[in-house]
Structures are given as structure tokens and as C-alpha cells.
């Protein structure tokens, strides 16, 4: 039996760490909305004008994308049995997620 693709623990830990980051960001957004008593366009715009908030938002998106990658690969490992099919689908998932990352940067800093 071939064992020792030593990334099992790393992915398991990453899945948990990224989940914590996403939870914290969600709480942060919730608090901000409560603080402002709802969000209008002006406060939304002011919020995203701050570099710190953009960095934190990017961190959230990076966590989301990595979390999605680990989860999608887990699903493919269970259900896409032929190695070639699994690899192709994994590459497709990576391409989509990397594209999303690029798009995130454009949204956050494109109009700076």
C-alpha cells in the first residue's frame, strides 16, 4: 500500500485555520453593520477605502479560496475515481480559484 503523501495533516490544519479566519471576518462584518445600524453606500465605500480593511478582506478571500480547494479536492478524491479524470478536474478547480483570486485583487484595488 502506498502511503506517505505527507500533506494530510497540513491540509487538515489549513482547513481549520481558514475556517477560523472566515468566522472572524464574518463576525467583524456583523459588528460593523451593527455599529452603523445598517450599511449604506457611503459607509460601504468609506470602509473599503481603508487599506487595512482591504488587506483583511483579501485575507478572507484567500482563506475562502484555499478552504474551497481543500474541500473540492476531498470531494474529488472520493468521487472521481480515474486518476486522469481526478487530475483534470483538480486542475480545473485550481484555475477557477486562481482566477477568483485575481478578480478579488481587481475588485479590492482596481479603483484605488
Amino acid at each position: 500500500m502506498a502511503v506517505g503523501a505527507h500533506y494530510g495533516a497540513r491540509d487538515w490544519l489549513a482547513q481549520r485555520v481558514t475556517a477560523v479566519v472566515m468566522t472572524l471576518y464574518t463576525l467583524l462584518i456583523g459588528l460593523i453593520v451593527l455599529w452603523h445600524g445598517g450599511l449604506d453606500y457611503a459607509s460601504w465605500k468609506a470602509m473599503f477605502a481603508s487599506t487595512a480593511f482591504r488587506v483583511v478582506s483579501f485575507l478572507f478571500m484567500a482563506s475562502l479560496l484555499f478552504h474551497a480547494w481543500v474541500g473540492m479536492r476531498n470531494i474529488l478524491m472520493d468521487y472521481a475515481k480515474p486518476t486522469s479524470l481526478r487530475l483534470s478536474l483538480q486542475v480545473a478547480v485550481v484555475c477557477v480559484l486562481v482566477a477568483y483570486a485575481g478578480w478579488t485583487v481587481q475588485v479590492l484595488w482596481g479603483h484605488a
Partner: protein
Amino acid sequence: MRFRIYRYDPEQDAKPRLQEYDIALDPHDRMLLDALIRLKSVDDSLSFRRSCREGVCGSDAMNINGRNGLACTTNLKTLAEPVELRPLPGLPVVRDLIVDMSQFFKQYHSIKPYLVNDEPPPERERLQSPGERERLDGLYECILCACCSTACPSFWWNPDKFVGPAGLLNAYRFIADSRDRDLNDRLDNLEDPYRLFRCHSIMNCVDVCPKGLNPTRAIGNIKTMIVKRAV
């Protein structure tokens, strides 16, 4: 009492079928295994495994009304009629309620289910303190009945790659043993996206274990040890 039992002889039948039985039980027939033995006295073609008839050998694990368990420790009073009996899910059927356990035992053997210790043995025996011995409680009682592994979706999808709850519980039984000296190799052997980390804590294994053991906790402990070793 009414039963619907999975019947299949791969050498003769094109496909499996469910056979209905209605049988008058004796007042002394208390457990499901008693009823099966009585059924076999009427229809001797019905096949199932059993040995100890008291929940220690693990031979008569089967799917009872949709749930894995031991026939010999399942009280007939707890069962809704007709009682539907099927072989353990996910393993190849040899005949009727008998499944081929090779894959299950292959996974069990892959975790080195024995103590590894090259130190010269003391004159009498390798002693443990009562505390060290206590750490094996909830682990050594496993009877390898396979109720847990064959209820685990991760084992259904990857029986060749995922060790499964029974194998992992036993892996932890040797990891936790103070007399063992093979900890690092044991963790290496499991640090793999399939062998250990296919477990997603669904806890079907805990739900069905007829000995009341908790493979999910053992698996969690192994995961923690591997992560601790890495960070």
C-alpha cells in the same frame, strides 16, 4: 415473527433477492441469533456466520433493519417487523449474510497490530503502571466485527486506501501503549490524505459499535498527535 432476509449465492443467482420468512419462535429465543438458528433449522440453505453467541467473536455482524450490529447481542424485542436482514454494506457478498472481509483485514494488518519493541526484554515481563494500562481502555475491547468500518461512508468510497475506523482505533491502541517503541513510524504510516484524513468525523462508527467504543475519538487523538508533531 416475520423476517425479510437478503439471499444471494453468486454462483447460482443472477441477482440478490429478499426472502420472506414467518416463523413461530420459542420463548427461549431471545436474541436475533436465536431466531436465525431457528430459521436455519427450517431452511438450511440460509447462510450466516456465528461462533461465540455472546458478543466476543465478532462473527455475526450484519445489517439489521438498516443498522449494523451483532445478531447475538440484539434483543428480538427491540426489532420492528418484518425484520430486514442484509449483509454488512460495502463488502463483497460471499453468500447471503456472509461477506468477504479480506479488505477489512488488509487494512487492519497495515497498521502493524502488534507491539514493536527492540529493547531487550526484562526477565519476566514489560510492566505498565495502572495509569498506563488505563489508557488502553476503550481500545483493546475491539472485536473486529467490522460494524463500524462498513457503516463509514469514507470506507465505502475508498476501502483500499482509507484504513477505516476499526483499523484506526487499533492503530491508536498501539500508539497509546507505553510498551511500544514505534510511535514515529506509526504516525508516518498514517500521515496521508487517504489513510487517516479521509475520516471527516461523521461518527457513524461510534453510532453502531456494538462494544460501545469510540473510533472517532481515537482518530481525533491520532490527528492531534500528527499535527502536534508537524507544527
